């Protein structure tokens, strides 16, 4: 009997060690103050040209967050970021409309003809917690949300696209970048991302931008995502001083 418990205990221990090692490996290790790219300037390192295809996933939140996000990405070049996915919380028609009009505004700026055909994905996510929802049912709605996030990340909706569209999206399911700036849904998407990272399915990098309205302290999602984001940008220098790992590059919302 004791033997059995011992074996079981050891197995659990080994598993735990393995899991924590894996998590440690996939967590971002930011070098403070040094831009990420400088790592590659040491000798005997390969030089890489930007690949022709890349995919970014933008997480749209409620009013203010969405406005800030589109202000930040208004200079985006669709030739560099060829595939774009927008996720919005269920019922947030306003954000969905903003995404549509942003995509329409891009139309003139394609220089590669192929990119114009790629189009974009606009996906609705159930809310992790509705306003005034009971805390008892919250874990369930979180799970539902997480499940949908996992599905979006692996491109579950691509099968339902028109033939032409899905042809362009196959192979580009996992985003290269996830860009979020505060809404609660972002936490679930990032969590889903880490589940795939744990199993080595994707190498998605996460950029988090704290809202312009946050001057003295981080928002809840900011605090949660601080150790998980590959780049954590804040718009006020006070925040960068207070939270190690946060980066201040000036105002981004103009």
């Amino acid at each position, binding site marked *: 009997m004791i033997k059995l418990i011992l074996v079981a205990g050891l197995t659990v221990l080994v598993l735990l060690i393995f899991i924590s090692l894996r998590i440690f490996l996939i967590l971002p290790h930011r070098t403070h103050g040094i831009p*990420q790219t400088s790592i590659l300037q040491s000798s005997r390192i390969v030089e890489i040209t930007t690949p022709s295809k890349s995919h970014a996933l933008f997480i749209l939140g409620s009013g203010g967050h969405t406005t*800030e996000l589109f202000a*930040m990405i208004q200079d*985006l070049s669709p030739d560099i970021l060829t595939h774009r996915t927008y996720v919005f919380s269920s019922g947030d028609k306003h954000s969905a409309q903003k995404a549509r009009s942003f995509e329409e505004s891009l139309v003139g700026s394609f220089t590669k003809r192929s990119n114009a055909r790629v189009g974009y994905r606009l996906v609705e996510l159930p809310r992790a917690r509705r306003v005034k929802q009971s805390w008892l049912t919250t874990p369930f709605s979180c799970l539902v949300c997480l499940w949908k996030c996992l599905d979006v990340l692996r491109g579950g909706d691509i099968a339902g696209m028109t033939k032409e569209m899905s042809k362009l999206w196959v*192979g580009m399911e996992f985003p290269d970048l996830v860009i979020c700036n505060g809404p609660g849904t972002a936490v679930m998407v990032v969590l889903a991302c880490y589940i795939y990272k744990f199993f080595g399915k994707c190498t998605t990098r996460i950029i988090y931008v704290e809202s312009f309205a946050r001057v003295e302290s981080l928002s809840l999602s900011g605090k949660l995502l601080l150790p998980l984001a590959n*780049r954590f940008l804040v718009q006020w220098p006070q925040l960068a001083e207070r939270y190690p790992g946060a980066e201040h590059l000036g105002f981004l919302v*103009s």
Partner: protein
Amino acid sequence: MAPDSSQNTDRKVFVTVGTTNFDPLIKAVLRPSVVSLLQSQGYTTLRVQYGQAAELYQACYTADLESTLAKSSMLIGGYAYASGDEITQEIKTAELVICHAGSGTILECLRYQKRIVTIPNESLMDNHQVELANEMARQKYVIKGDLSDLIPAITQSLTFKYKHFPRQGSKIFSEVMEEELDQADKDKIVPAYHSRRRKDYDEWIENKNWCGCRIV
């Protein structure tokens, strides 16, 4: 910024409370003393977006205010809400904006380089309007007004040297995105290279228009 009387005869003040409730601001602006100060500064129109405070807005038309208005040709108009585009249009055509310290409204005004008097709404829960207003005022992007008396802030706004809000934010962010895209591609190679199936790696290079490795 002297008004060009031949072209720009309409000098507008726009007051906005956004989508929140901010009754004290409406009250503070529609005081006869404040309205007559705006008149004396040469403004010809006062537009108020008052949100849910329709009754209060009506109640502010006291005899005092009427008599103040009778002295000159200043027009006052108000409405509850407007769409984002309409608000943008209002801000664009206004000369002075008196607003709550919501980040969206402030950013919109800064984009069109308006004179801004902002008043934080301290009644909102879990809101950081005070912090934002203080910091923006400290850096001279806006003037922070006091609800009990708006006159000093409005007087100051005529001569205040507003700092220009930097415009290159989106460029900086695009650079960050490009850096991270490069990094994401580098991350992809490593597992592929160490993969037991060398084929994966070759395929990756082919599909990604990889130009090959070069030892630097």
